[in-house]
């Protein structure tokens, strides 16, 4: 099957404008701007059932329709912060298929009538920012960006913006603060960015992969898009597979493919022939799915879409599937995730700031074998104490792996021999 998003794997040199244009590039954008009303684009995307690929899975078209028309200007921001451990899909798109993403961004900008849109990249993506800047310059030269596009009076400009390397800036309101030049910390919601966003104006924030889907939808229509995936989760998805598998990497599969297809098929099975022990389907923010002899087939045959992953006690999220084999103890795994979240907590709200610091001490004690009898129970309590009280979702995410590991892998947590 030809790739929809990772088209560069089929077509060499797709990151060159002439190659991209030769292969149907910017036809969709031209079609949208010249032949469609902005609302029609939004309706088409709504009908396609495209859901946000950044993690939350919110329907993209619905998100656009929240933008109030009487407050201008509007902005579109592409979230290219991609900081979730285990996620590396946007990087590949931007590096090898940048024009498809930028075309998607342009279509989204037209749909919500934004004349200035941003690409927000994490600080470590400076080389991608350079590349995107060059691509944007090429597009401007070729007349795909600027004033009076295709003679319609619609004008659009794109800008890249580099963050300074903070996980929290992938949270959409923190991202907006960061673009505005402030500390990257989440805002209180409501008001939502769709009403009060960048520079207090209505703003749409979409993930890179989401945007990369748009040219296909505009060209082939909602029905064409719905050929892939399931009814509630249509389309294809890039799964970033990592951990103890033989062939880690990005794999583009229709939503609704099973874990078996991904892990055993694409990934070539568990490395060193070991046994599968746990799956983290959404990077460090996931609840860990327990896999053992009793449920191995059930888990592997679970379809990967936004609904069904819940049936095995986790969420699809950004589909950064981390495979853990039986050589690892879960106390080691959550030691890693809590370290990460403690380091990346922005410090704005108390539960995440202080809770992760506390959890880190507890998981370290457990991992190093100094834990007292009460420590494991206390870790569970602290995780519950943090969960549900934070300002943004990332605070809650920090506890997912901890609570699920404690609940599903109790045998991995030991009281120390002190």
């Amino acid at each position, binding site marked *: 099957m030809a790739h929809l998003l990772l088209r560069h794997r089929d077509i060499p040199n797709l990151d060159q404008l002439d190659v991209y244009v030769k292969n149907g590039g910017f036809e969709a954008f031209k079609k949208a701007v010249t032949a469609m009303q902005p609302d029609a684009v939004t309706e088409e995307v709504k009908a396609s059932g495209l859901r946000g690929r950044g993690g939350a899975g919110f329907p993209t078209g619905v998100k656009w329709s929240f933008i109030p028309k009487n407050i201008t200007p509007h902005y579109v921001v592409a979230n290219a912060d991609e900081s979730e451990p285990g996620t590396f899909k946007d990087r590949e798109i931007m590096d090898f298929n940048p024009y498809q993403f930028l075309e998607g961004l342009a279509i989204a900008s037209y749909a919500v009538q934004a004349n200035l849109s941003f690409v927000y990249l994490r600080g470590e993506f400076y080389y991608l920012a350079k590349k995107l800047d060059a691509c944007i310059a090429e597009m401007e030269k070729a007349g795909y960006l600027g004033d009076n596009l295709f003679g319609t009076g619609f004008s659009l400009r794109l800008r890249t913006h580099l963050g300074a390397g*903070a996980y*929290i800036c992938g949270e959409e309101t923190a991202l907006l603060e960061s673009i505005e030049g402030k*500390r990257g910390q989440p805002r*209180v919601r409501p008001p939502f960015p769709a009403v009060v966003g960048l520079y207090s104006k209505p703003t749409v924030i979409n993930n890179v992969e989401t945007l990369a889907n748009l040219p296909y939808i505009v060209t082939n229509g909602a029905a064409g898009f719905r050929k892939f995936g399931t009814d509630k989760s249509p389309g294809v998805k890039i799964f970033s597979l990592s951990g103890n598998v033989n062939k880690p990497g990005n794999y583009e599969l229709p939503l609704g493919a099973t874990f078996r297809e991904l892990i055993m098929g694409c990934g070539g099975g568990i490395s060193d022939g070991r046994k599968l022990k746990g799956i983290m389907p959404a990077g460090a923010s996931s609840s860990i799915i327990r896999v053992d002899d009793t449920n191995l087939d059930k888990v592997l045959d679970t379809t990967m879409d936004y609904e069904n992953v819940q049936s095995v006690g986790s969420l699809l999220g950004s589909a950064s599937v981390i495979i853990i084999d039986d050589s690892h103890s879960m106390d080691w795994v959550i030691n890693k995730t809590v370290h990460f979240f*403690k*380091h*990346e*907590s*922005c*410090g*704005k*709200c*108390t*539960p995440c*700031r*202080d*809770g*992760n*610091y*506390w959890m880190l*001490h507890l998981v370290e004690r457990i991992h190093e074998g100094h834990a007292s009898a*009460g420590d494991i129970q*206390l870790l569970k*309590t602290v995780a519950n*104490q*943090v969960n*549900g*009280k*934070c*300002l943004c979702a990332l605070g809650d995410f920090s506890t997912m792996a901890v609570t699920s590991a404690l609940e599903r892998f109790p045998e991995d947590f030991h009281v120390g021999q002190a």
Partner: protein
Amino acid sequence: MAKLINLTINGVAVTVPDGTLVVDAAKKAGIDIPVFCYHPKMEPVGMCRQCLVEIGRPAIDRATGQPALNDDGTPKLQFMPKLETACTNPVSEGMVVLTATEKAKAGQKELLELLLTSHPLDCPICDKGGECPLQNLTVEYGSSQSRFIFDEKQRADKHVHLGELINLDRERCIQCARCIRFQRDVAGDPVLGFYQRGRLTDIVTYSDPGFDSVFSGNTTDICPVGALTTADFRFGARSWELKQSASLCAQCPVGCNVTFNTRREAKSGGVMAIKRVMPRQNEQVNETWICDKGRFAGYHYTEAESRLGLDAASMESALSQAADKLAAAKSDAVFLAGGRLSNEDFYNLKQLAAKLGAKAYLYSPMAGGEYTTAYGLGAGSNLGDLGKDDTVLVVASDLYNEAPVWHLRLKAAAKRGATLIVAAGRATKLDEFASFVVRYAYGDEVETVKGLAGKEKIGDAIKNAANLVVFYGSDGLGLAGTSALAAACADLLNGKTGKVNNGLVGVWNAPNTQGAYELGLAPAADLKSELKGKTVYVIAADPAGDDPALADALKSAKAVIAQDILATATTQMAAVVLPAAAYTEREGTYTTAERRVQRFYLAVPAKAGTRADFAIFAELGKKLGVELEGRSALLVMNKIAAEEKAFAGISYARLAEVTAQWPIVGRGDLYYGGTGYENKLGLGVHLALALTPAPSTSGRGGQMRPKENELVAVPVSKIYDLGVTMAPAKLLGQRIGAAAVGLNPVTAAKLNVENGGKVQVQVNGVTAEAIARFDESISTGVVLIYRSFGIPISEPTSVKIVVAEKA
């Protein structure tokens, strides 16, 4: 009037205006929800998460769009699965808030436990101990035991100087950002910020010198822990050992309500001493804020070593001598009184002078009081009420330096939508918040104001203003200039006289200049010639120290009687010196420039061998055969109320009245509004407008403007100077700096003067050294000379600037 919303909090029905936050609605109903980051004067941010409550909203039936009902017909409520923050959620119709359920209480307790994991066990030595929101909430909501291992606490710097005035303890900080938000949103001085992230988040100051803001002390009031404390109160006393005395700040004409905290202490020789100055809430004057000059310089001059005092016998003989001299002089006596005196003092002084047939003058660098008494703010005015459709004009005044709390309140008014017009000869801090900035050349003040009404947008804003308040000051002006400027400003107010929230306000340099004007005193147009050969009675003023020319004039006087609290150049040359009690040591009233009469109370016992000024006048009166009230300030006020029309109906009892104020501060819940004090002893009373006919406001002007190749020096003010009420404050002294002159770089280039270079200033017969500071916003040919820096300047005058030779 906003729509009213009905909701229920813990079963109590509450009705509040639309847009009210749940936490405020609860407060109004007498229900406390614990908060740290929320402050009623600032926008909510929902950072600390302490105010977790359960909120239920009426559910809507999706099918019908109507409110869903339970089986028994009551509206069905929809509760979120998570607890919500009361500080970020506005009320909505039919909302049910539960703050004390098991779930909510558990949430609050768990949150507090998390906060305490990062807090040191410092309470015994912490200056906030005893009035600390975190301490109070821990007792009320917290667990008595910690499950966190103490050794794992994060260590941080304990004693960081954020500038000379404010200390930071990084361990104690709970990252609520109240200080950062206050500086950014309320004060408009964004000099604080966060550094690092997560658990390492630190408060840092961006400015040099550190924490460079005249409102910095307020952050220590609203800091919910002991992270920010003032340097002057460091280890001064425990909060529960302090007594409270309601008083006023006497540093400027705003009249901020303050509370002096006093304590008997061994360090001060076993007597009562003022330990710190805290704001006292008066929403119509200073809200809950005070500036650093009031907090750190406030009362220090009353404790200066140069305080005067006489034993009983000497006092008696001094009084007799003074009486003899006045009796001999009769109408040849001249009374000269500074604006530091209270209304009662001015009244007795006026009576005494009148009986002698002597002239009584106010000693002030600024005139125009006849206009502020006739065109002043109407009764009931409140700068906090100004907003959309209202216009505020500030002319020739740098409020940030001259009356900081007005700066803060006008900034807030501009934010609420009032049109703020700032007209000045140089850039001021208020420009940033103004809708219109008018820049004129020094000397053009009156013409500029006269021309404002003719300008398109500004003219409309003034003419069509629902309410118009005009502030005028003495930036670059002397007596003649301010008088003409006041007249021009009053012209703008024709037709609005006496209305609420309309009027003319003089930015005086003393706390009770307005009171002196209200009681009929005014400055002499040519003071020097008035003094020659007369018996001069100088009260609460130091003309000799201010200006060598006045010192010469006093030398030519027949005799000088000086009455003051401190030894000054004038008391040194006086034949008789009468030591007066400071205002902290007695009762009295001041009239603010907004024409509000406010009471101050006794805070500490009078220094031995001093008497209140009004009592000294009464004593002299007794010797001169004039009957004056000298027993108590209250009785003097009764006489003033009976005889002075403007003061009709004012009594000490009325001045002590208090009505409910919002937000509620200073009660047990220090976490809500901070440690500023609740006002229990009087909000003050507005004067009625003087019924004298409005003075003619036409046909004056003509200011001095520099000619080609000539320099004109103009007087301007700086908040921290070397004046007598400022100099004794040691802590603030570090912020004063050296005498400086301001020059346009173009002017400076002609003189070969460098920015920051030393120059010799020859003005008013004096040669002094100063540092040159460039200011591109001022007109060429003008030299700004700061008042009270040792260079005498009272009127615009010619000046010579020479580059000082390098040593």
